[in-house]
């Protein structure tokens, strides 16, 4: 018997009991949609967590530290030789962090960085260029916003927040010359007496961070200026930085060409007895927990599918019972048990397919609706904006595939027994109308 004929057969049989079949399809649809929706919450939380982790670091970045002691130039050279390493960035943090332009002040994250490696690692400028001369600097995208006049004292927290924008520097900082205060004093512990300053020129402004909430208030100074600043600071306080610290780096990061290389390169670096920390490593640990969480949700969702499958089992059992005489006649004139079984399996598969199809569509619509409506509700009732990129439900293609597999598997299993029962219909009893 050809598939086309089996299909025709099944369709005409399904049409005979339209209400019953559609009710069963409805149960499967709800079961499938529930499974996808429930698991989609797990997938959404996982995705949000991954995005959160990824937003802080680059995927192809490996932070390297020594088990004992600090990273030196020798270590950097060693890392540069590791197969798969594209570049190694190194930074030295400077304890002096006050810069000013007239009455505007900024307490920034000042650091000395190796410019070629930073560029190779993907550091980009919004405008300007990288420093060439000793007193040239590059500032972060939000440096100008953080460069502000002293706020009047006695303001409430709310008023301070409002005034901050108002007191910020409004002009273009490129090519402006600032005064760099060579002191470790900050806004809380003001320096006593006169402080030595050096003039620094802003030659470049960093690109805006991809994340809306991320603030870049860093300042890159040259290696020569770093040494000058440190020598001045050491005169003020000889213990401020040791000789060892002076020769070493505060932060060393190895970069690979692609995210796929990170694991292999990490293994190679660890073989050289360095400790590493990469996003891939963090994600790996996180993924284990989330996979278990998602599996749990899928399991609970699958229970709904199982309940729906009872409906399919009942429908198919009734179909077999109702059609026992037809089955008997078909067997008498030459239908093999295999043909009979396939016809009934096909019928349950069609019910399952309709259920899965409609369930998936329903789940996608619900998911889209929830993600659209929920932030509005939160904003209305809690009076707070949900975090950027927040989603309650996320349905990746893999979840759809899992749900379809589970639903179809359960459907076929529930249709199996009635189909097998159909093959055992006794021809003589059926012909005598005894069944």
């Amino acid at each position, binding site marked *: 018997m050809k598939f086309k*004929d089996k299909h025709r057969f099944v369709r005409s049989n399904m049409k005979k009991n339209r209400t019953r079949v559609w009710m069963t399809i409805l149960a499967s649809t709800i079961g499938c949609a529930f499974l996808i929706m429930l698991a989609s919450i797990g997938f959404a939380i996982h995705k949000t967590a991954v995005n959160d982790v990824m937003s802080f670091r680059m995927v192809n970045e490996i932070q390297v530290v020594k088990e004992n002691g600090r990273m030196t130039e020798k270590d950097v050279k060693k890392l540069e030789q590791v197969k798969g390493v594209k570049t190694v960035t190194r930074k030295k943090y400077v304890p002096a962090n006050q810069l000013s332009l007239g009455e505007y002040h900024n307490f920034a994250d000042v650091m000395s960085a190796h410019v070629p490696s930073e560029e190779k690692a993907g550091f980009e400028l919004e405008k300007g260029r990288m420093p060439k001369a000793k007193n040239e600097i590059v500032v972060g995208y939000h440096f100008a916003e953080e460069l502000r006049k002293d706020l009047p004292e006695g303001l409430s927290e709310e008023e301070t927040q409002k005034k901050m924008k108002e007191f910020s520097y409004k002009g273009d900082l490129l090519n402006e010359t600032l005064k760099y205060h060579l002191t470790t004093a900050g806004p809380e512990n003001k320096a006593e007496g006169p402080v030595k300053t050096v003039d620094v020129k802003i030659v470049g402004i960093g690109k805006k961070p991809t994340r809306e909430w991320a603030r870049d208030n860093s300042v890159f100074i040259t290696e020569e200026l770093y040494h000058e600043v440190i020598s001045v600071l050491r005169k003020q306080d000889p213990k401020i930085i040791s000789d060892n610290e002076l020769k070493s780096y505060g932060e060393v990061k190895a970069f690979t060409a692609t995210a796929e290389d990170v694991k292999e390169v990490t293994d190679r670096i660890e073989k050289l007895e360095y400790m590493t920390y990469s996003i891939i490593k963090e994600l790996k640990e996180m993924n284990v927990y989330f996979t278990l969480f998602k599996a749990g949700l899928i399991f609970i969702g699958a229970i709904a599918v199982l309940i729906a499958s009872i409906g399919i089992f009942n429908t198919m059992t009734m179909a077999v019972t109702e059609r026992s005489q037809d089955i008997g006649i078909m067997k008498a004139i030459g239908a*093999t048990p295999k043909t009979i079984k396939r016809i009934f399996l096909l019928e349950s598969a069609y019910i399952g397919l309709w259920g899965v199809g409609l369930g998936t569509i329903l789940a996608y619509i619900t998911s889209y609706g929830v993600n659209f409506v929920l932030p509005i509700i939160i904003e209305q009732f809690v009076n707070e904006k949900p975090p950027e990129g927040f989603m309650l439900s996320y349905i990746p293609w893999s979840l759809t595939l899992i749900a379809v597999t589970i639903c179809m598997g359960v459907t076929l299993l529930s249709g199996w027994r009635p189909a097998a029962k159909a093959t055992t219909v006794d021809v003589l009893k059926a012909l005598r109308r005894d069944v």
Partner: protein
Amino acid sequence: MISVSNLSYAFKIGKKGKENIIPVLHDVNLQVAEGEIVAVVGRSGSGKSTLLNLISGFIQSEVGSITINGTDVSKFSESKWAEFRLNHLGFIFQSFQLIPSMSAFENVELPLVLKGVSVTERKKKAEEMLKRVGLESFQHHYPGELSGGQQQRVSIARALILNPPLILADEPTGSLDSENEKQLLSFVKELNEKYGITFLMITHDHEVASIAHRKVEIIDGYLREEKTLHEVQR
């Protein structure tokens, strides 16, 4: 065409291990030649339908053997029997056994569907067969919309659609009036004479038995006698 040797059969009634065994057929031997019409007669409960069911493969016996068209079918599996029935046997039942949800055309084409014949060929053959039994204008009617005689003709068309060499008929005129009975019997005769189709018919109707070349009687499960057509007529 059919060779039944030392065939015995007993029904088992009751729970497994505590069954009551009721013997129905005892050491039956029957030969049906190609192109013959053989009538199996006997009282109700004598075992004649059981013999037909055994030859049809609806039930199987552990004792004796059955050979049809040169093939020993005694030990066939259910699937093999189904295939064999489709390819070699045609059936005419007392209560027609048409599928009520299918039209006359669909019932007739069913064996072709099971065999996997193409739609075009199926349509051509089924229409031709319905025309042969005089029901071309009733092809879209459902069994419930046809008279007993018409239903039996649909059933015959279905039995003949795959040109089987042997037709097994169980009380074929049992549900027909005398007019339809006559028509059916003349059709059977025509098929036998024109196409050489072999018929094995179970009946207790003397009219039916009268068209047979041979009459075989079963009494209490024993095949008592075999008579030639001449003897039957005498």
